[in-house]
């Protein structure tokens, strides 16, 4: 059933335990996850392991996924919404090899979705788990460099500093210019950094049916948002929280109310805006939706730009 079993069957020495990490490590991570779920938004320290990938490539997310994945799970990995970028492909291949699990690119079919910086456009459902790769888990870090002090501030619920950051934004730019890693308050208690997801995705975290787990490998922190938890983006009364708006629909699928990526087409200023969530975009195209640049000639591959456009 596992990589371990496969290897021993063929008479070779086993190289990996199921899902790479040894069982004691997984146990330790599961304990941190359970604690995180019990205290929504609280950053639980854990003994992060070296993973066969550099920090910043999702070592935290990979450890969380390794700790919760089972042989029956179906794994989807996205990087900036896309299933086919380096990070997503290699993490998916990693678990296909070390855990032998089925992988998918379809959001609806996945039981575990590991993500770097996006929440899928399709609403997640009960039973699904969204695993975030987090670079810096501490929302107060850039204003208060001392870890001892930030932990105390969390403990005593002293979050005035978070609004100082938003105040600075408005004072300098006239509006809250934070567009990603936008701080949220979880269940009325802990202020949390939702990892560098665009603030467009913040409302999707609110009362989500799916379990959301956050792993920061280098910073050795795990935190969680259980299903149906209140997640409120911080704001001012006279400068309420707003998500980004796009002037045009997706150039490939014509989708609106979705998060778009800008793709440079040439060196003469040509550009297009396409869905960041590739699975969502492909589903819409398959259902017959067409954006203005989704001419059939594009999909015939005549235009050499197609590959890069679709994969961004």
């Amino acid at each position, binding site marked *: 059933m596992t990589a371990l079993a496969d290897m021993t069957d063929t008479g070779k020495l086993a190289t990996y335990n199921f899902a790479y990490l040894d069982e004691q490590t997984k146990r330790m991570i599961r304990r941190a996850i359970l604690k995180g779920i019990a205290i929504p938004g609280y950053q639980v320290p854990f003994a992060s392991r070296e993973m066969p990938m550099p920090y910043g490539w999702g070592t935290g997310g990979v450890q969380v996924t390794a700790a919760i994945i089972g042989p029956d799970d179906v794994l989807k990995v996205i990087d900036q919404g896309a299933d086919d970028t380096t990070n997503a492909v290699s993490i998916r291949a990693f678990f296909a090899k070390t855990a032998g699990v089925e992988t998918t690119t379809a959001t609806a079919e996945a039981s575990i979705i590991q993500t770097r910086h996006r929440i899928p456009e399709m609403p997640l459902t009960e039973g699904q788990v969204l695993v975030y790769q987090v670079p810096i888990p501490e929302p107060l870090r850039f204003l208060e460099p001392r870890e001892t002090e930030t932990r105390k501030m969390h403990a*005593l619920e*002293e979050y*005035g500093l978070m*609004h*100082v950051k938003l105040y600075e934004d408005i*004072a300098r730019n006239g509006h809250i210019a934070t567009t990603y890693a936008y701080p949220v308050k979880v269940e009325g208690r802990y202020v949390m950094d939702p990892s560098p997801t665009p603030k467009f995705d913040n409302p999707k975290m609110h009362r989500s049916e799916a379990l959301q787990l956050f792993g920061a490998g280098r910073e050795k922190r795990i935190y969680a948002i259980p299903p149906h938890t209140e997640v409120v983006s911080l704001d001012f009364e006279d400068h309420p929280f707003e998500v980004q708006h796009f002037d045009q629909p997706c150039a490939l699928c014509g989708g609106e109310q979705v998060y778009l990526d800008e793709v440079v087409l040439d060196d003469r200023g040509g550009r297009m805006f396409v869905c960041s969530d590739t699975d969502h975009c492909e589903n819409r195209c398959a259902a017959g939706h067409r954006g203005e640049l989704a001419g059939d000639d594009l999909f015939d591959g005549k235009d050499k730009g197609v590959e890069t456009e679709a994969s961004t």
Partner: protein
Amino acid sequence: MSTAELMETVQPGVDDQAEAALLKVEGLTRVYGDRIGCADVSFSVWPGEVLAIVGESGSGKTTLLNCISSRLTPTCGTVHYRSGDGVSSDIFKMSEANRRRLMRTDWGFVHQNPIDGLRMTVSAGANVGERLMAVGDRHYGNIRQTAIEWLGRVEIDADRIDDQPRAFSGGMRQRLQIARNLVTGPRLVFMDEPTGGLDVSVQARLLDLLRGLVSDLGLAVIVVTHDLAVARLLSDRMIVMKQGRVIEAGLTDRLLDDPRAPYTQLLVSSILQV
């Protein structure tokens, strides 16, 4: 007011006037290993009065100030603070949450070096607004309006509100630090050499400003200084420290005009007469 006599003979919880004291320090001692930071210091501060703690460098002034403002834990002794609802409690027996809330609402702390008391990477407006946001103000327009008012009160032009304190002169930084501390209407402000490092004319303006604010707001202030002129101008009462101990205490005018302890006489006679 007979506070001078009272202060010199502070008996724990005896007379009624001592009960009304805003801050009551009893037997405060802080040692650093074998060395003494401050030893057996007792005094009270009443609402609306300014107390100066003077003494030469190394006499334990700053240790004492840090202890009574709960920034440092004393080796022994108690500090009782009477909050707005009239309840007097030992600040070292409070929960940390309450103590920290006290420090950002009822108390202020003006550092000698403004860099220690300001957030240098955020604008002046955010510096003033931080305490408001910390106590739950969530209306940008109101916070900004209050910040502008306070900058005006400390004589900083409103058009500097979005500048970072690093662009300010030393005197402006110090005034900004004062505004930042006073914005939540504290009842007790601690000041550690507030005029240190400023030139004489800026010092004079700052002292004038402080006098005005103190009397307008009815603040109680504990100011640590080695500059007797600051003590003379600002304070109602003084205590003189030497080698960690209080050697003389009393009304400022009495103490400066008629110093009794030899050390105080030396200190007073050391002032340069121009």
